[in-house]
């Protein structure tokens, strides 16, 4: 049988996801060794894992280079890839929030300047409120934008709120809760249906024993 290609997000979330898959019967001893390889196979379990940048997982899956993968709901909402979203893994839980300086007073008659890594999510959220905004796309250290007066608010992921607090910011509105999702390429899902359905079932069984 052909191996199931699994794209894992590099980093802490990816390691947790691998732990989940290992426990569900898809171990790959090679991946647990310390080395710099990026692709790992275990033909006995029928899987091939590879590490990619978290925001790229959806691209690998959408284009079929990976059959399945794990991506945050934030990435799926931002890029809208054409993939199946098969399970909420309940890992990496956080929320997409609007945050501002504690003393910031919003008034609806002004153009709101929004700094974010997620321009599509921010634009959709405010356009649903018919609010005109000025989006400032940043690639990191979003929290600094309101402090330096670059923006009025930020739209970003909030896990504990500690970073916000330390920078004298506070979450104002929750846009959407975020967690890690198991995604699948639409065509792989059909041609490797038994393999993917079995994996989903075993993951589900681990979630609700």
């Amino acid at each position: 049988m052909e191996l199931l290609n699994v794209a894992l997000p590099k980093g802490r979330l990816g390691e947790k996801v691998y732990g989940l898959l290992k426990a569900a019967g898809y171990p790959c001893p090679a991946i647990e060794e310390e080395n710099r390889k990026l692709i790992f196979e275990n033909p006995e379990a029928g899987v091939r894992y590879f590490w990619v940048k978290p925001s790229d997982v959806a691209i690998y899956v959408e284009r079929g280079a990976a059959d399945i993968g794990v991506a945050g709901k934030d990435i799926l909402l931002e890029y809208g890839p054409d993939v199946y979203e098969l399970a909420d893994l309940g890992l990496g839980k956080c929320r997409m929030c609007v945050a501002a300086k504690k003393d910031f007073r919003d008034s609806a008659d002004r153009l709101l300047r929004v700094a974010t890594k997620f321009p599509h999510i921010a634009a959709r959220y405010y356009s649903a409120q018919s609010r005109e905004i000025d989006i400032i796309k940043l690639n990191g250290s979003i929290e600094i934008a309101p402090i330096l007066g670059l923006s009025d608010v930020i739209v970003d992921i909030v896990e504990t709120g500690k970073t916000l607090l330390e920078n004298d910011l506070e979450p104002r509105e929750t846009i959407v809760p975020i967690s890690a999702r198991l995604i699948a390429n639409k065509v792989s899902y059909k041609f490797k249906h038994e393999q993917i359905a079995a994996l989903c079932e075993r993951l589900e069984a681990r979630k609700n024993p």
Partner: protein
Amino acid sequence: MDIMRGEERAGLRLRELYRRHGYLPYRMSKFEPYDLYVRNKSFLVSEDILTFTDTDGRLMALKPDVTLSIVKNAREGGGLQKVYYHEHVYRTSPAAVGYREILQTGLECMGDLDLFAEGEVLYLASESLEAIGGGDYLLDVSHMGFVSALLAGLEEDVRSALLRELGRKNASGIRSVCAQAGAAKELADGLCRLALLYGPPAEVLPVLEGMVRGPEAAGALAELSGLCGLMESRGAAKRLRLDFSIVNDMSYYSGVIFRGYLPGLASGVLAGGRYDNLMRRMGKTGGAVGFAVYLDQLERLEKKDSFDGDILLLYNKEDDPAAVAREAEKLIRQGRVVRAERQAPAGLRYRDVIRFGEGGGR
């Protein structure tokens, strides 16, 4: 045949297939008035349209779609119109930047449809995939009537949110939309089950029977089983799968819809369905069913020859050109691909290199 690209060969095979089933060729202009597409934007695969101003000042568009043009010119009353086409369309694709020219072959059957006519279109869809995929393919079928019966009575925005989650097979998404809309738990359960169903008709049809509520769903299921039975009797059901995650805009599509896939191609190569609602929107009375095969992706499946030719015939300045010509001609007559030149061309590979006057030459 070797000089033809895969998409050209496939296009020929498909047109021959449709012609043999009595479909007539349909030729059309590359342009249509922009108006036609503006009025039906959500029918199109992508909403971007290449436009230009015609000499009389009218805003024109390079065809992003063929079906709209055919439906526009469909004649009213009396039997069926069966046509096939082979055309370029111009549109953007979500995965790529900018406009692309896409070669598309397909057919439409319009008028007073019956189960035979609809079954024939589905059969030709599966034969098309067989012809271009070499036997390994899947044809997924869904029925919008069955889905819309489940969603009846819901607000427009809830319905479209549910259709979107159904298209992603996202059970947790379906549950959260239902919860937010205050819909019955029974609806959420049913939709989740429908989203995750995938399999051959013999497996899935009995499950669907248990989900029928009301005459609309019963009618849709009867039509679906009828079509699957017809495919079975024509020996074409082996690669048929039922999958309700294929969803299309309900304001255009009314009944059965289907998609075809080949292994190794990350998106579908065939898409079609029954679009009576589009006919009605364009002021026509009959029904319509058809599909398109996207040939542009096929080049990915082709195995590239690792040589640029069979023989490189190298000659010198002093050699008699007439003798070189005779030698080249002799090799070509033997069925070889021969390139004759004084020096080896950079970057090209040949199976054999022959120096004129040595080895095979004289």
